[in-house]
């Protein structure tokens, strides 16, 4: 842990953040807007990796947590006129509560059933939003009157700062003693139990932390977009993108997940001229990585280091 501040990974990360922070000085607003979204996605993917990579639980419904945060924040602002910052905090809080309600029963079931439960939760949320259209804006989406800022540079810096802080906290947590116990519980629950660790408690805590960052990031994203819609924060396809990002970047690396998300969104944009093919190409690349480099970008590098 202490070794991190002298490690290569730390200096590379620091250099990347510093370079990223200077971007608004010389790139277009279009690029900044793209990266802003990518950074929020990076937090989704990192929060997801904490659950999958460390706790060993596959959450097929990351957008349940994201969507609850996003819509809570959006509705409170659009329908009740609450201030932006109160809405963001309450969005994250709502996501934690929703995560707890989902995880408490879901963690009792083993294997693929946890994943299925989370998937069903997304479908229920999506349905709820469509049915209660008066409150949620339904299929058209919810227009949010307030934004954090209209300046592309400011929005970019907020997103970058948020992602950097989230990464520091999530990575730190993953490398802390609690993170080790979590990893042990995910890898061999029977043995972790025999070593005296309450596995359900640790996994639940991981779920709550994951929910908090997903919800917070979802709420911030809504105030950047100025709208909340099923297609951007709830749809299963969005969740699949989050999962693909994390897997591309490297399981059990946290930081890799952010890289994966940025890659996925930027690559999608670069391929926009190919039209409908863009999604196909990005998916094909993701599939190849999963099949041939299951460790992902950062995972491959780290395990090479572990063997040496």
């Amino acid at each position: 842990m202490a070794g991190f501040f002298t490690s290569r990974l730390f200096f590379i990360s620091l250099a990347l953040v510093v370079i990223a922070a200077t971007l608004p000085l010389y790139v277009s607003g279009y690029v900044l807007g793209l990266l802003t979204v990518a950074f929020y996605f990076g937090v989704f993917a990192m929060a997801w990796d904490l659950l999958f990579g460390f706790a060993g639980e596959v959450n097929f419904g990351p957008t349940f947590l994201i969507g609850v945060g996003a819509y809570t924040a959006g509705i409170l602002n659009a329908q009740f006129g609450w201030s932006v910052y109160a809405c963001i905090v309450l969005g994250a809080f709502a996501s934690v509560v929703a995560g707890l309600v989902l995880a408490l029963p879901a963690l009792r079931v083993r294997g693929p059933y946890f994943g299925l439960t989370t998937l069903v939760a997304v479908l229920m949320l999506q349905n709820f939003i469509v049915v209660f259209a008066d409150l949620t804006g339904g299929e058209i989406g919810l227009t949010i009157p307030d934004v954090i800022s209209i300046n592309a540079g400011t929005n970019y810096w907020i997103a970058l700062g948020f992602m950097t802080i989230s990464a520091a906290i999530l990575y730190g947590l993953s490398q802390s003693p609690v993170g080790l116990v979590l990893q042990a519980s995910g890898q061999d629950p029977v043995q972790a139990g025999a070593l005296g660790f309450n596995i359900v408690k640790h996994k639940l805590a991981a779920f709550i932390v994951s929910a908090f960052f997903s919800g917070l990031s979802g709420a911030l994203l809504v105030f950047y977009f100025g709208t909340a819609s099923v297609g951007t924060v709830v749809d299963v396809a969005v969740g699949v993108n989050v999962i693909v990002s994390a897997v591309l970047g490297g399981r059990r690396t946290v930081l890799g997940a952010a890289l994966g998300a940025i890659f996925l969104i930027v690559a999608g944009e670069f391929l926009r001229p190919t039209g409908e093919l863009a999604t196909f190409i990005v998916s094909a690349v993701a599939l190849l990585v999963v099949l041939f480099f299951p460790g992902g970008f950062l995972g491959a590098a780290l395990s090479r280091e572990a063997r040496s």
Partner: protein
Amino acid sequence: MDMRLSNRAVLEVRGLTKRFGGLTAVKNLGFEVNSGEIFGLIGPNGSGKSTAMKSVMGIERPTSGEVIFEGEDVAGLPAHKIARKGFGMVFQHSRPLNRQTVLENIMVALLPDSLFMLFPDKALVERAKWIAERVGLGNVMNRRPPTLPFADLRRLELAKAIARDPKVVLVDEPFAGLTRAEVDIFSDLIRSFRDDGRAVMLVDHNVKSVAALVDRVLAMYLGEEIVTGKAEDVMRNETVRRVYLGGAIETHARPETSFRDKVPLLQVENVSVFYGKAQALENVSIHVHEGEFVSVVGLNGAGKTTLFNTISGFLPYSGKIVRGGNKLRGTSPAKIARSGLVQCPESRELFGEMSVRENLDLGGQHLSDDKRAAQLAWLFELFPILKERQGQMAQTLSGGEQQMLAIGRALMMQPQILILDEPTLGLAPVILEQLSKALTKLRQTTAITVLLGEQNVTFALPHADRVYVLEHARIVWEGDPGRFASEAGADFL
């Protein structure tokens, strides 16, 4: 350690029973372990010893009974609570954290069960280092587990189990996969736990392998205690001898010269197999003639299943496997099975949610309709119970019926060579008799070549023409079943 406490049992187990559905794995088991004592729980595969240990540790929830630790009943508590009270368990299979160092892996075991331990404690690092030295990992503390040899990974398991200074240490098969020299080192380590005043409980298959180590032994069979006492007394016990060696065995061996084929039908030559770093087979050579019935006997973990899976094409190996003049290397398991070398695996692998008939039809799927009907009629003569159970779901059958179905399904493939891996596993004596009769009939009325793997010698010898003994990945004896008891029997206690 308080003198008064050291004379009293730290762990007392009374009336421990564990049922899985209709199966009673552990029946009314009772024993006590004192501090400063090594206690062995011994029994053949499927006897319920591991389940008993898991029930003590709280990994399985006992159906009934008491597990009294220092006067307090802990039965039914979850494993993590029992562990915190002063229990440590050494697992046979380990999955260490591969991206963390050996030292960090030990530190995990030292951490409190708290969500707020965000920074490691310096004192824990010192303690972890001390433990690493203690189990002989001092030189490799800063390496990562994937770079360690197998024995060091086992040391790591020991280190984790004793990290929080438990009063009771449970050890699951302490010597599995270790070489002779390593066995001595691990024996010394386990003795040192006893000398620290801990109560140590071992689980193993046979008395002999742990006789030098244990103070007292409880031998169990089919979930129940046979006898408890000193190792040499338990080895002399009549019932124990019968369970492991059987009574007077009548053998019907046909001499090897009576088989006509000059070159044996199946030849396994100098085959070695590794699982990662553990060697599962070491230069194993066996041969089987056409129509011969060969038994490979060996205790659990000796390498029987590995040998069969290698022959069936499931595992990479060095050496040579030749069947009817053709090398089998490079042939897929499916092709090997289809060509008549059929395995009936230890785990049975039935299609649980399909009916008995569907399982059998799948076995005979490649046959034409009339041939399949004829084969089925023949099979129902061999196992009449399967005819009655045709419409029933396979997973609802009793253990014995499931075994018959597994053998039946393999026979539906019309094998030339049939491999039977531990068909007696966990079955009651009355079922064994039925299976035994079916094998006799198979041997007398068909030309099928049979390769049988067993730890139950009583079952394996009567049918065999020839016997191999597999021990610690090597063939250590080969010969006539009539000579087995006098020449190789002693190793089976």
